[in-house]
């Protein structure tokens, strides 16, 4: 995601330098206020660590490809957002000067796209709230994966915006973003898993090194299975029910494309096979077109969403219990 100088216009580069300078200025002030002289060498050594370990190829099982650590998320989980941000700037500057990885003029953009989102959004809005009542392996894994995915998506989107504002490509914004976002979704997931593995190791070996972990009075540090299931079920109901209200008013990507090409969202078809299959579908479908049968209103769509969420979660829970049952049996 390192942007080269050729990809930015002077005005965009200057704006992003200004934004990054403000964030860096605030960070310097905060680090100074902490008044911990030991922190600077730790930041320096950690920066070098991130730089070096980003060169390790971690094999992704079943794919044959490899990924690397997410520096921003790792640094902010260990040093905090301000010190982590400054360390990331140092890493980006040395990458740019020594290896031409990112341009000098585009450094402001790169700091914003990779260090700002990774350290501030990742640490303050994702890592810290999740670690509010103590850390645990599941919590660390969730925070790392979520943090890496969200911050990488934001970074990739910023790259698209900066390229668009610079006017250097004729590629339509939608197409460019459509290429960048899915690629970075996969990268974010892999980087999140690797970062989580490292942070879980640190948690097991030296939990005091992790930043933003509040000590919980509860002796149980791990997120219990029951709580996880309740959270997942609630999230599914909210997403299934709530978001389907929004989804119902917009056609999906394929329908939209068909409407543009054929002038209609649903193609007409006829024939013996088609009619037979349609009859079978009509008889077996509980919720045709995600709505209550013979109902075409938003209420029907919402109910379908909630019912769908309950069915999927229930199926998932049943499968998990079946898996657990057989695993226990094989262990006996």
């Amino acid at each position: 995601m390192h942007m080269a100088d050729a990809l930015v216009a002077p005005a965009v580069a200057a704006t992003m330098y200004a934004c990054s300078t403000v964030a860096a200025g605030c960070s310097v002030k905060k680090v100074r206020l902490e008044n911990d002289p030991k922190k600077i060498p730790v930041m320096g050594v950690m920066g070098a660590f991130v730089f070096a370990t980003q060169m390790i190829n971690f094999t992704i099982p079943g794919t044959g490809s490899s990924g690397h650590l997410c520096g921003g998320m790792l640094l902010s989980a260990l040093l905090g957002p301000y010190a982590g941000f400054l360390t990331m700037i140092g890493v980006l500057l040395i990458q740019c000067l020594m290896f031409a990885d990112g341009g000098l003029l585009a450094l402001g953009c790169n700091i914003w796209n990779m260090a700002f989102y990774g350290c501030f959004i990742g640490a303050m809005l994702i890592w810290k709230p999740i670690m509010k009542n103590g850390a645990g392996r599941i919590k660390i894994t969730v925070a790392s994966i979520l943090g890496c995915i969200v911050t990488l998506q934001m970074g990739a989107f910023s790259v698209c915006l900066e390229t668009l504002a610079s006017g250097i490509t004729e590629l339509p914004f939608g197409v460019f973003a459509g290429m960048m976002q899915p690629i970075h979704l996969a990268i974010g997931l892999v980087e999140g898993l690797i970062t989580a593995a490292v942070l879980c190791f640190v948690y097991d070996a030296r939990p005091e090194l992790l930043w933003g972990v509040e000590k919980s009075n509860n002796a149980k540090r791990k997120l219990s299975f029951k709580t996880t299931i309740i959270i997942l079920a609630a999230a599914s109901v909210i997403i299934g029910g709530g978001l389907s209200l929004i989804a119902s008013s917009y056609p999906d990507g394929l329908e939209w494309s068909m409407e543009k090409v054929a002038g209609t969202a649903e193609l007409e078809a006829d024939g013996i096979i088609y009619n037979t299959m349609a009859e079978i579908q009509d008889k077996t479908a509980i919720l045709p077109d995600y709505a209550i049968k013979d109902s075409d209103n938003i209420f029907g769509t919402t109910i379908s969403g909630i019912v769908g969420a309950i069915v999927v979660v229930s199926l998932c829970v049943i499968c998990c219990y079946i898996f657990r049952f057989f695993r226990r049996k094989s262990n006996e």
Partner: protein
Amino acid sequence: MSKIEGAIHEIHAMDAMASEDKWINKLHPLVKLLVTFIYIFIVVSFDSTDINGLLSMILYPVLIFITAELDLKMCLKRLRIVLPLVCLVGLFNPFFDREILFYAGSVGITRGMITMVTLIIKGVFTVLAAYILIASSKIEDICRALRMLHVPKIFVTLILLIYRYVTLFLQEVNRMTQAYALRAPNQKGISYKAWGSLAGLILLRAMDRASAVYESMCLRGFDGEFKRENSTQLCGNDWIYLISLSALILFLRYVHLFELVGNMIMK
């Protein structure tokens, strides 16, 4: 040579080049930093169809590369990182912008083709300029220049520390990955079972090392800033370099030298 070994070799080679006794190495790092920024800024400011104007900007790198005897081969190797990304972005231009600007014989040259070429040229020139800076100035010198530009000392110290320990950690990572590879033959990369323990162990050692580094720095009188004996004043040569090269770059920006000379010859 592995990727990590290649990186270590590159850092050592750049360090050695920056320590040579050439005229450009003796110049104040601040003037080189300023000229580099001016050059890159001007290069990217060219219109996406102004190839003639942009091409004339090659004079600055040509001038410096020849007079300072810089290693062009090593510089071209650095393009392997920048060019793929720039090409990928520029590659779509010929497909989306098919407005024909002129004909070269019977072949119509479209606006998209021109903007793609311009983008690649910009990518190459900016890498050349950054290389001139880093091949003639040590990181310590660039940090000195940043300090003169009132960049906070906490930040400058941080960059120096990262740079100092990068080689060390690269060597450590190289040793560990080599040891892993020897124990896991025919396996590409690090297995997911060792993701946490391999990098985590390096991290814990890094933290311990940071404490040792801090204590030894304190024993040597570290008070938050690295002291240097060198004078920070600009001398006559520095001013000449700054003014003449800035003037040349600005001249090339506003006067299309190649076109002008070409027209004169054609007449």
